[in-house]
């Protein structure tokens, strides 16, 4: 009697009196609905509404229980034990059990998956009983629960019945277009690149859900069209709002501008393992191998001016490779190198380049907010200290191949740490480039001490010892100016004024946090 009453009350709460349709537009359509075939923000962000992991991130990016109610480190060896939530069902009605976790591990860590790197240290996943899962790792991994918030659970029976037991990035599978998660919303219509419709999953286990009864997502590539669609009331939300339109939306009737900070840090990187410059003129060797030159670049760039004029005031200057909101941020190292052209000249003179030199600055022109303008501004700022940067701004589809081919001397990069931990950029950007690590360290920076510390950080259980090591690397990166961090990219969304929502730092849009008033 009591249970049925509770269920009835919950039912009333979950089903709002009127139908609330929420239409939103983004620039990129997720290219797959398979949570293990795409490790990119558009895919994972969208699928967070449909699928769920053992853990999830709350509004402030902290880890909270989702399909696991609690977890603890294993007593006999390295790894974690997760206690699963009971009574959870998939959208098709199947029960969620430990077997689905094992299946999702096998699927997400397979060679065909794009998410295999999350499970690099995992040796075995076992299920002692139906609602307990043990994940063993080759070394203690304190941030493992943090790193699997986007590891989404798929039903074994559903995948087997539809011949989708492995993701297929190249050819697609049933799971590329169809979904069957445990999340608060299920997909009722999917037309790739045109329209995706979501409806609430009535049997969802949670209660933290707004009042949207129908969600319609339309990709609109042209940002001016997106702004017009918002202003004319045809959509209730757009993301992102182009920086140049932010003020207009802020002032317009009936719409609101939602400002936030993204986890993405923008920075400049340098060629460091080459003996000469690609675009070098009037210089022998590679000046960027000298930390003094890299420091000079840092002092020459006026981040505040970039923030004011190009980003129209919405960007947070930063001194590290992660923003202050990330776990493992080094509190003591938040001082950015001051804008000081005089100091930059002195440093260059000290390094033996008082006459300056010319070099090739590579930038994307369609990847980050106002990327080309930022690079252009940088060129003129560097010119003031005698550095002659030859800017080559190209579309992102050509950008990465060019960086891989070493066609740059200095380059522009944005990094969003997938684990929301300071260790992430060190692993990908600072560690000596190898097969599975340092894969985005284009410049080839190499420091044995850093390489020694990173595995130690990955397996350190003690928080303060871990932080100490993170601080040490952050200190090295800052002293040697391996990268010149500039600012944290702003998050600008436009909404109709009757919409309440939450902007999370990873730029994921969570439909269940939307309330239509």
């Amino acid at each position, binding site marked *: 009697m009591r249970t049925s009453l509770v269920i009835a009350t919950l039912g009333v709460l979950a089903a709002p009196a009127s139908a609330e349709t929420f239409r939103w537009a983004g620039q990129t359509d997720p*290219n797959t609905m398979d949570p293990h075939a795409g490790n990119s923000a558009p895919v994972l962000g969208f699928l967070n509404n449909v699928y769920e992991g053992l853990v999830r991130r709350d509004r402030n990016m902290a880890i909270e229980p989702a399909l696991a109610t609690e977890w603890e480190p294993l007593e006999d060896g390295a790894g974690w034990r997760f206690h699963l939530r009971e009574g959870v069902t998939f959208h098709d009605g199947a029960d969620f059990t430990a077997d689905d976790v094992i299946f999702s591990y096998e699927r997400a860590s397979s060679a065909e998956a794009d998410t295999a790197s999350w499970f690099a240290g995992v040796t075995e996943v076992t299920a002692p009983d139906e609602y307990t899962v043990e994940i063993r790792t080759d070394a203690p991994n304190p941030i493992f629960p943090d790193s699997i918030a986007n590891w989404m659970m798929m039903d074994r029976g559903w995948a087997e019945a539809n011949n989708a037991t492995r993701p297929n990035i190249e050819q697609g599978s049933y799971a590329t277009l169809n979904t069957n998660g445990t999340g608060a919303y299920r997909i009722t219509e999917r037309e*790739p690149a045109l329209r995706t419709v979501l409806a609430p999953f009535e049997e969802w286990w949670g209660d933290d859900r707004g009042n949207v009864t129908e969600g319609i997502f339309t990709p609109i590539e042209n940002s001016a069209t997106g702004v017009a669609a918002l202003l004319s009331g045809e959509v209730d939300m757009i993301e992102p709002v182009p920086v140049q339109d932010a003020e207009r939306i802020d002032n317009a009737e009936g719409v609101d501008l939602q400002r936030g900070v993204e986890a993405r840090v923008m920075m400049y990187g340098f060629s460091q393992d080459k003996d000469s410059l690609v675009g070098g003129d009037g210089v022998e060797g590679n000046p960027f191998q000298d930390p003094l030159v890299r420091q000079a670049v840092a002092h020459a760039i006026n981040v505040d001016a970039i923030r004011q004029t190009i980003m129209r005031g919405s960007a947070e200057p930063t001194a590290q490779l992660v923003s202050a909101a990330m776990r493992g941020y080094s509190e003591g190292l938040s001082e950015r190198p001051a804008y000081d052209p005089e100091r930059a000249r002195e440093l260059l003179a000290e390094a033996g380049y008082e006459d300056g030199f010319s070099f090739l600055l590579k930038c994307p022109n369609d990847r980050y907010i106002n990327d080309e303008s930022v690079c252009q501004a940088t060129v003129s700022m560097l010119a003031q200290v005698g550095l002659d940067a030859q800017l080559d701004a190209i579309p992102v589809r050509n950008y990465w191949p060019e960086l891989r081919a070493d066609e740059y001397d200095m380059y522009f990069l944005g990094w969003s740490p997938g684990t929301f931990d300071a260790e992430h950029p060190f692993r*990908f950007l600072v560690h000596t480039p190898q097969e599975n690590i340092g894969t985005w360290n284009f410049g080839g920076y190499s420091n044995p001490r850093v390489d020694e510390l990173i595995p130690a950080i990955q397996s350190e259980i003690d928080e303060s010892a871990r932080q100490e090591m993170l601080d040490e690397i952050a200190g090295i990166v800052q002293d040697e100016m391996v990268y010149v961090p500039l600012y944290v990219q702003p998050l600008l969304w436009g909404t109709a004024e009757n919409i309440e929502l939450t902007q999370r730092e990873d730029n994921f849009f969570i439909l269940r946090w939307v309330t239509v008033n």
Partner: protein
Amino acid sequence: MLAYIIRRVAQSVLVLLVTGFVAFSMFSFVGDPIDNMLGQERTQADVERLRTQLGLDQPFPVQYYKFLEQAVQGNFGLSYRQGRPVSEILVERLPATLELAAVSGLLALAGGIGFGIFTAIRRRGPSASTIMTLSLIGVSLPTFLIGILLIYLFSVELGWLPSFGRGQVVDLGWWSTGFLTESGLKALILPAITLGLYQMTLIMRLVRTEMLEVLRMDYIRFARARGIREKSINFRHALKNTLVPVITITGLQLGSIIAFAIITETVFQWPGVGLLFINAIQFVDIPVMAAYLMMISVMFVGINLIVDMLYFAIDPRLRVDRTAGGH
């Protein structure tokens, strides 16, 4: 006749082959699809594996040969972005583009002929010169700007028409149409104007010039002298003789309407093949790009072929000159 057709068809096939070859040689400059297909945590081994699987490690003539081999069997491969057969995606998207092109074409033709006649007859009137001035703007403003201006006027300010998309469509099984619903028809108006404006001004100027030419002819003067009503002279005698070049141009322009729909479709998020192509470029979706370019070139080559054959049928000189050493 048959020999001529065979020769023209052979030439067309050659043109298609060359177009495809040039297209494939360009694809490596468009970028690398692997970066879009794998996330930031991929390893070099993942990249190599995928590259081999997609055949991207092969030189482009080999890639092109493989594409042709499949294409002649009607298989255009799988889209990198969507993981679905390209032919399926094209068939899904084509109705949107064809409906838009048809409406724009009709609009251009009706508006162009109407305004053309008007400005030719009322050559010195103030409204004719206003139309002529406006048409200059239509010719010189870029399409995307016209689109954005129309959106701001009719969607944002007045709120009459939708700013993007195709509205509600009705699926007829093999064809999805926007003609049968109110929102579908409303959604057509702005993109059709945007796409058809340039063609409309072109046709208008053509009709006007031809009409002025014809109105100066002797037989018009004699008709006037005979006391035939002005209306009958303008529409029965003059207009008919104006229309021959107009029809030729319109036929040829139909191809470019479909091809130039790319920009209009991007501005209005119109779910046609042009938007598909733009998306494909951004993602470096080579199978989609290849199939689209082939489709467009087949269309252009086909239209030209038909026009050539029509000339052949109409113009006897093409037949007589055969022995004199070609044209």
